[in-house]
């Protein structure tokens, strides 16, 4: 039996398959409106099937915004538990995790045994999430990658309110139309800084402790990570497949379930 973790996010669905603790395959697909459809499509893709056919060969743990809404998993787990597990698997030195997804931001502590300790999050507001970054890039008519690169050349960080994505949009527009206009690099840095300051508030709430691991789609954004490191005062760890760590954690929990059942 193989262990399978599915993270059904609001924008993307991630799947990781473990065979005896080793990653066998993984994939990321755009989420469908229906969580169950997202899960089935993603799993079929990961397994290289045209239509999903599990045949009782997989123990599945689902998580994410749509984790409870799928019929193909044996169990569903909280995102933060899966995250803590996934991060600890990659970095046993990790004591703190920051996850920035499309519609959420979670900061949490991990104990010496890889278990989730405290956590703080903002999930009812778009400010400080991936959607916010995407919306801002669209507004500035540049790609997410270009915005990230650009921000590294910023001379200053104009203040952009990090409390509301809608209001921040008007602020960015006024920077673009200012005479002389604020350089795009600075605006980009200002946007990242507004997100980082919200995350820092969450970090302070749970207590900052090294090592810090950053995951979620936004972790791939070098510009934002750069500013986060400046604010924290030290380097953070970003795994290569930062987007799939939650799915990895879910798969690890599934693996443990299989082992328990085997005993």
């Amino acid at each position, binding site marked *: 039996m193989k262990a399978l973790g599915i993270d059904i996010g609001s924008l993307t669905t991630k799947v990781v398959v473990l065979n005896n603790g080793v990653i066998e395959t993984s994939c990321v697909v755009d989420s469908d409106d229906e969580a169950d459809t997202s899960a089935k499509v993603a799993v079929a893709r990961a397994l290289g099937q045209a239509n999903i056919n599990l045949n009782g060969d997989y123990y599945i743990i689902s998580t994410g915004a749509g984790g409870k809404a799928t019929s193909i998993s044996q169990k569903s787990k909280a995102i933060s538990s899966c995250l803590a597990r996934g991060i600890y698997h990659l970095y046993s030195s990790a004591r703190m995790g920051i996850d920035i997804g499309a519609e959420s931001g979670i900061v949490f502590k991990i104990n010496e045994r890889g278990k989730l300790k405290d956590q703080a999050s903002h999930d*009812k507001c778009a400010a400080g999430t991936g959607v916010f970054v995407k919306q801002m890039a669209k507004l500035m008519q540049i790609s997410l990658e270009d915005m990230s690169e650009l921000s590294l050349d910023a001379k200053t960080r104009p203040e952009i309110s990090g*409390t509301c994505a*809608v209001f921040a949009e008007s602020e960015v527009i006024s920077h673009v139309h200012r005479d002389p206009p604020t350089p795009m690099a600075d605006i980009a840095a200002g946007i990242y800084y507004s997100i980082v300051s919200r995350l820092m508030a969450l970090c302070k709430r749970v207590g900052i402790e090294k090592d810090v691991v950053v995951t979620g789609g936004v972790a791939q954004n070098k510009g934002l990570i750069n500013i986060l490191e400046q604010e924290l005062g030290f380097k953070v760890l970003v795994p290569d497949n930062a987007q799939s760590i939650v799915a990895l954690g879910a798969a690890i929990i599934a693996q443990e379930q299989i082992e328990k059942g085997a005993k």
Partner: protein
Amino acid sequence: MLFGGIDIGSRAAKVVVMKDDAIFASTIQDTGPESVKTAYMAINTALEGTGIAIEDIDYILATGYGRVLVPFAKANVSEISCHAKGINWYFPSVRLILDMGGQDCKGIACDGQGRVTSFVMNDKCAGGTGRFLEMIADVLNIPLSEIGDVALESTTAIPFNTICAVFAKTDAIKYLKQGAAKKDILAGLNEAISTRSYNLLKRVGIQKDFTITGGISKNKGMVAKAAEKVGLEPLLCEDPQLVGALGAALFARDKYNLLKTKG
């Protein structure tokens, strides 16, 4: 004697000119990017065809977000004071005001003289503001002026678990795709916004009589929901969007009289 009040809000500019304690002229216009230009356009439109020029008005007072940038105003007062003052002219019995504006929402308590006794405001989040409703009207492709009436036709409101304008917009699109009726989506949003407004009002204290001012008070669906939540039927004046400008004109009269008595 002629007294003028100008209320430069975040989304709309309002002017009220008073003659012998009656409203003599008024206008409501969109706020443009330049406050000074907006101020001149609004007052000129209000005075059009009256045979009166700006110079003929004895005292003009400004309020609202753009109040410091009105060149022809002799003084300015916060919109919170102006709303209390303005509503008192219509209804001296009002003690509680819910002001739902373009980019913020306020709960104001006042006394029988129209003086503010306490207030709370939300200006950090676009959720539940006029800006929010504009976004939703746009998504649903219904004119802003009609969304209130459409919501009233709903019998089964769709529950929204977020007040964030960005997330609510995404959710609304999702529900539309799933085949939900526009009226039910609007009713659900009105429910969410009213709950939030009610919580704001609770912080200043619920008391009779109750009124709603600001642009959103023209939305019948929202007014009905707010009345239901608060448990009080609001007293609505002729044009609740003009209350701030009216209050400013009344303050202009008071200032003028005070200056005269002092010599």
